């Protein structure tokens, strides 16, 4: 049985990260165990942003070069991005309930704009399923993929621009990270391992799209 190195390494890295977060990272004094949600929530948000940013880049280049491989990559990255955003939207409220006293706040710009980002890329997937012509499908979804990514800097900066309950960035800020070393190492490991998981998922989803298109080409109609 052939085991590709990327899924094996990503799987081991994620398991290692979860074990380190659970057993080898100290509890935060004020929040207790709920603070450890941070090690799964922050990487999911980082990967979601990376995924949608790469959708926009691939889509932009697709509109220029019309290379089908770029469309397949954008399609794959968008789907994987939706998976990671779903994790963000589930783990965030589970941290918020014990810390803020509520799962969700509809007035909070960071929360609602993240939900909006999720809806945009879910609609990207729906759009791809709704357009039959491969050329039109690729063009329409490339435009939506690019427009959706404009939300990313807005979401990142929303904690500075609006009154929000969401904590300020720990890493993505001008000054040095405000985290004890043991926690910082766990966070950096989790960012690396979930990024590897992203590439594993995208590779597998891309391979699926290649096989699907090959079958469609053989049978003489669109996938």
């Amino acid at each position, binding site marked *: 049985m052939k085991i590709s190195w990327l899924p094996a390494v990503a799987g081991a890295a*994620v398991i290692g990260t*979860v074990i380190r977060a*659970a057993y080898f990272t100290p*509890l935060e*004094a*004020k*929040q*207790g*165990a*709920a*603070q*450890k*949600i941070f090690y*799964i*929530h922050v990487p*999911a948000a980082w990967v979601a942003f990376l995924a949608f940013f790469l959708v926009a880049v691939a889509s932009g280049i697709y509109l220029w070069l019309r290379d089908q491989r770029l469309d397949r990559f954008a399609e794959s990255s968008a789907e*994987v991005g939706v*998976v990671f955003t*779903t*994790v963000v939207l*589930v*783990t965030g409220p*589970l*941290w918020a*309930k*014990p*810390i803020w006293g509520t799962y969700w706040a509809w007035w909070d710009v960071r929360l609602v704009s993240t939900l909006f980002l999720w809806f945009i890329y879910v609609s990207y997937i729906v759009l791809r399923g709704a357009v039959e012509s491969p050329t039109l499908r690729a063009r329409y979804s490339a435009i939506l993929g690019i427009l959706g990514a404009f939300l990313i800097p807005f979401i990142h900066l929303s904690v500075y621009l609006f009154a929000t309950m969401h904590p300020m960035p720990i890493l993505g800020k001008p000054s040095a990270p405000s985290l004890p070393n043991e926690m910082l190492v766990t966070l950096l490991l989790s960012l690396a391992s979930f990024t590897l*998981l992203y590439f594993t*998922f995208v590779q*597998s*989803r891309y*391979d*699926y799209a290649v*096989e*699907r298109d*090959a*079958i469609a080409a*053989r049978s003489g109609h669109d996938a």
Partner: protein
Amino acid sequence: MPDTAVYYHLAYTIALGIYAAYALSLHLRRKQLRVKS
């Protein structure tokens, strides 16, 4: 220190469950394609 372990366990279980379910869905979709071809 507040006892917030239940939220921590729930968050990790659901998040890892979502990743595992997606990995399984990719595997099954590719398997289904091979059956089709």
